[in-house]
């Protein structure tokens, strides 16, 4: 449960800033920090168990048949990542308190950042791979929202889209890989998967599984060539960049590789894929970073390069490479976050992020300079800093690679070269920002002051960087070693830091340092060369590609779906007819064994009128009013048919639906042209006639064939169990609210959504070409005649009485929430028609949308209530009570459910009607209804 709390606290805590989003930033920061801190504290309290090597598990079954359970796992690796996520998250929340000071968007930011934290914690704490995948995609989604935080800027929107396409696309590959993996292992639980490493590696599908999973990891961790999204994600506010794109999200891919290490790693294929990708990413990132003039751009590419470095280490396969990878991961998180924070402050203080403009800031912000020096030195790998150690560890590990042959020489040289570049850009970001002459044409000059308290998160992170650098043994032992042991599957010996002093790695370090310094000195000629190179904007290419894709699919879709309803109907019915013919080929015995009922005159007459009216609708469809009347006739005779063949519930429903339908159709028709043009020519008409005729006859034949055969259907179960299981004698109602209550819940949800959709569509709709009002429209003095409105008012209480009666008796006699809701809606509609929209609306006690919501909630909570008593969702309970005067009275929880149905139906119907009616008013949309 503690593990679930770890995720739940930020998840639920995200609601707080959302609700109080108008509060001042300081209070919002406190609200956001509380759940984050609570999670962090909980994690720290679990540290002793983790150090002891325990693996905490927590499981709750979800869909056991699919192998899906919400299970969480906390071991050393998960603890390390979770602590990084919550710890740096807390500092980011603190930082954002200064970054967002005086801005109104802080609430949104804090909500999203907490959501993101919860999703990240979900990834690292998941025991079930499928659950992890859900969180994985959740981080992609939240990251999309965070990158597009300033959605009014084009760059932000494009960057957000690009990152979503790449990371979520990679997530799909990962899904495929995980499903395959689960099939091979027979379980999605990490424990089982990690134990089955040999089996997986020997399996024929191993290359496919590995490629798919690595694709997911590489896209998330911005590995070459998928690294492109990361620099473009810098359009996000700086706290987002500092958190997502340096410390946490991009580490998810690395986490995955470390997590699945025992299951997938240490094969030749793994080595080739991971190491080479890591090497390419390392070099591309480090090289490009040097030439970025944007501070955040430089940091982004340097992040790419460091991610590549860690990937490279994960791929090496030497015994201690995993340890080096995780150690560097911690160091990177600690030194990259403060650098991003610095970039944010400089951006705010000077209004620019261009390092060609920003120079010599040490005069204006000396404290910031000192605090930047430490992480920058760590990034460069200067002695005494954490980065120095991790870089040394990289050099040591690169020298240990023994096979294949090419790698023994290439990798050490390669990493030295990359180290050289990283020294160069680290010097650049520090020297260019704080020294290098004077500022050039800054938008804000002199730069704004930064308060000392605003520097506190930087101070803490810089101190941590120093601490790791000064006491690496301790940091390693407490943070990294449990993680390495957990990731490796076996306990590892402590890292021997003394071997870092060996001669060859030292030499490599010195070469990188001096080379980087020289490279930086030679920057100006190099920039000039770089500026002359043709500029390739990945975003433009990506955008072009996206547009092409969209246009292609649009073309394909519209080729089939051209908006013609006739066409859709023809396609659907045509398919049904063809399939029907195919299925019944050679079938002759249409009439089954049940004898036909005798035909009586009234039924025959009703049937004939029904058919005649239906034909009439088709024939007169150009004249709207006769068609509508005939449609009404059809509906009424269908009602009579239901009544005749013992379906009183259906008859009641049909009757009330019919009334509403005619009213809504009248409203809708008044927006259409008075005369519809005759468009179809005879070949088309005959085609339609043939399709419709054949389809209709086919349906009739099938109905005939089925009705004349004895059928063993599920209905006998319902008939037998209605009273004993649902406590009601009206089987239809018992099915609706009890046996199939879940269906009903879904249906009323759809109804509610449809109504809200109508509301949304008509909300700002101005119909200019409404049916032309007749000249001097209101010459009949009163638009709402007094006789009608008086009678309507009289009818209202009676109608309420009737609907209450129908509602209450519904469980045992024809009736129920749906019919009662329709009756109420009809009565209220009459008020609208009689008294006018404004008159009736001003007398409504409640808005309709809350009514729909309330109905859905009532229904839902009735269902949930059965959980409280330990029964499955929507189990109905009933009992009988004796009331004085009234007598025996049944109380069923289904009645409450039915109340939800009732409320939703009333709200939805009236919302649709009132909004369509609002369009009719001469003034067009006035005050919002609903």
């Amino acid at each position, binding site marked *: 449960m503690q593990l679930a709390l770890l995720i739940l606290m930020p998840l639920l805590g995200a609601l707080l800033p959302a609700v109080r989003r108008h509060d001042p930033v300081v209070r919002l920061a406190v609200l956001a920090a509380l759940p984050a801190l609570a999670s962090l504290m909980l994690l720290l309290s679990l540290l002793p168990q983790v150090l002891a090597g325990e693996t905490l598990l927590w499981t709750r079954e979800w869909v056991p048949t699919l192998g899906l359970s919400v299970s969480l796992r906390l071991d050393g690796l998960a603890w390390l990542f979770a602590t990084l996520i919550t710890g740096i998250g807390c500092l980011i929340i603190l930082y954002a308190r200064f970054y967002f000071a005086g801005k109104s968007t802080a609430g949104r930011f804090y909500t999203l950042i907490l959501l993101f934290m919860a999703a990240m914690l979900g990834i690292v704490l998941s025991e079930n791979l499928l659950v992890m995948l859900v969180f994985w995609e959740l981080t992609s989604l939240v990251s999309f929202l965070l990158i597009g935080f300033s959605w009014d800027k084009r760059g932000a929107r494009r960057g957000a889209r690009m990152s979503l396409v790449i990371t979520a696309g990679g997530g799909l590959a990962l899904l495929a890989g995980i499903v395959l993996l689960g099939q091979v292992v027979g379980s999605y639980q990490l424990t089982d998967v990690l134990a089955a490493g040999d089996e997986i590696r020997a399996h024929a599908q191993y290359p496919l599984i590995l490629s798919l999973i690595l694709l997911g990891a590489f896209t998330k961790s911005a590995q070459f060539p998928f690294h492109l999204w990361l620099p473009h994600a810098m359009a996000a506010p700086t706290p987002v960049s500092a958190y997502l794109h340096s410390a946490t999200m991009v580490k998810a891919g690395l986490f995955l590789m470390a997590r699945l290490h025992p299951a997938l790693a240490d094969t030749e294929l793994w080595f080739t894929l991971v190491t080479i990708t890591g090497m390419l990413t390392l070099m591309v990132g480090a090289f490009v970073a040097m030439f970025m003039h944007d501070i955040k751009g430089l940091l982004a590419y340097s992040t790419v390069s460091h991610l590549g470095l860690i990937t490279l280490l994960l791929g090496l396969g030497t015994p201690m490479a995993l340890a080096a990878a995780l150690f560097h991961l911690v160091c990177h998180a600690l030194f990259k976050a403060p650098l991003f924070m610095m970039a944010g402050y400089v951006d705010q203080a000077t209004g620019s992020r261009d390092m060609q403009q920003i120079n010599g800031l040490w005069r204006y912000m000396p404290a910031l300079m000192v605090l930047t020096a430490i992480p920058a030195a760590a990034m460069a790998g200067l002695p005494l800093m954490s980065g120095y150690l991790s870089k040394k560890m990289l050099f040591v590990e690169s020298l240990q690679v023994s096979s294949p042959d090419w790698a023994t020489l290439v990798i050490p040289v390669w990493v030295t070269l990359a180290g050289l570049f990283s020294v160069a850009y680290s010097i650049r970001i520090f020297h260019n920002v704080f020294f290098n002459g004077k500022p050039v044409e800054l938008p804000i000059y002199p730069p704004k002051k930064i308060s000392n308290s605003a520097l506190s998160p930087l101070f803490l992170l810089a101190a941590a960087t120093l601490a790791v650098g000064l006491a690496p043994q301790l940091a390693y032992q407490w943070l990294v070693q449990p993680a390495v042991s957990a990731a490796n599957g076996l306990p590892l010996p402590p890292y021997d830091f003394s071997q870092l002093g060996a001669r060859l790695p030292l030499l490599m370090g010195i070469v990188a340092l001096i080379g980087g310094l020289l490279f930086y000195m030679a920057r100006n000629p190099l920039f000039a060369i770089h500026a002359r190179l043709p500029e390739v904007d990945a975003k433009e290419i990506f955008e072009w590609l996206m547009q092409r894709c969209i246009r292609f699919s649009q073309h394909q879709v519209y080729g089939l779906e051209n908006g013609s309803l006739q066409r859709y109907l023809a396609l659907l019915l045509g398919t049904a007819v063809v399939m029907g013919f195919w299925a019944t080929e050679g079938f002759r015995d249409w009439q089954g064994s049940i004898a036909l009922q005798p035909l009586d005159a009234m039924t025959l007459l009703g049937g004939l009128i029904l058919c005649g009216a239906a034909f009439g609708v088709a024939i007169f469809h150009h004249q709207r009013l006769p068609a509508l009347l005939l449609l009404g006739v059809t509906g009424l005779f269908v009602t009579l048919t239901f009544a005749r063949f013992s379906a009183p519930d259906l008859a009641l429903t049909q009757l009330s639906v019919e009334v509403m339908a005619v009213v809504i159709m009248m409203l809708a028709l008044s927006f259409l042209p008075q005369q519809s043009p005759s468009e179809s020519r005879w070949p088309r008409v005959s085609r339609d006639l043939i399709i419709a005729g054949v389809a209709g006859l086919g349906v009739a034949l099938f109905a005939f064939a089925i009705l004349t055969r004895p059928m063993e259907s599920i209905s006998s179960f319902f008939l037998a169990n209605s009273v004993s299981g649902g406590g009601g004698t009206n089987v239809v109602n018992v099915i609706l609210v009890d046996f199939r209550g879940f269906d009903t819940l879904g249906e009323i949800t759809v109804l509610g959504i449809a109504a809200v959709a109508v509301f949304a569509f008509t909300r700002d709709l101005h119909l200019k070409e409404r049916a032309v009002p*007749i000249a001097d429209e209101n*010459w*009949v003095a009163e638009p709402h*005649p007094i*006789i*009608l409105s008086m*009678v309507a008012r*009289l009818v209202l209480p009676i109608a309420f009485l009737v609907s209450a009666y129908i509602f209450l008796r519904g469980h045992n006699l024809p009736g129920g929430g749906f019919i009662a809701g329709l009756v109420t809606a009809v009565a209220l509609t009459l008020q609208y028609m009689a008294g006018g929209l404004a008159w009736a609306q001003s007398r409504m006690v409640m808005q309709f949308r809350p009514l729909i919501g309330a109905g859905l909630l009532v229904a839902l909570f009735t269902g949930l209530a059965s959980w409280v008593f330990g029964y499955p969702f929507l189990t109905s309970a009933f009992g009988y009570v004796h009331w004085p005067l009234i007598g025996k009275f049944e109380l069923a929880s289904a009645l409450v459910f039915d109340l939800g149905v009732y409320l939703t139906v009333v709200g939805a119907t009236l919302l649709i009607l009132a909004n369509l009616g609002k369009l009719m008013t001469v003034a067009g949309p006035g005050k919002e209804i609903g």
Partner: protein
Amino acid sequence: MTTTEIPFLLELVIAFFLLIGALVALLGSIGLARLPDFYTRLHAPTKASTLGVGCTLLGSLLYFSFINEGISVQEGLITLFLFVTAPVSAHMMAKAALHRRVRCVRRTRNVPWEGDES
């Protein structure tokens, strides 16, 4: 069906109501078919639906009250609702027709829109 004997006098009364109802309904239908314009035609079905259906229902009420030994209220309610709704709907139709200036026969006096362009 039940074979309860109904007193002759009651039978007479029931028959009277049924016949009157049928007659009015017939007249209403003829009127609907024969009368010259909308406004005059409106009179016929309203009579049929109030007086005609009302009389029939009254006969039915008497009959079933006697057969089932208890006053049959459904017919009463139906009659009540018919008497409330039929005039209102006729009124509304007349209003709508006036509003839309539906054509009337030439002999009509006090046409509201007389003197206008039409």
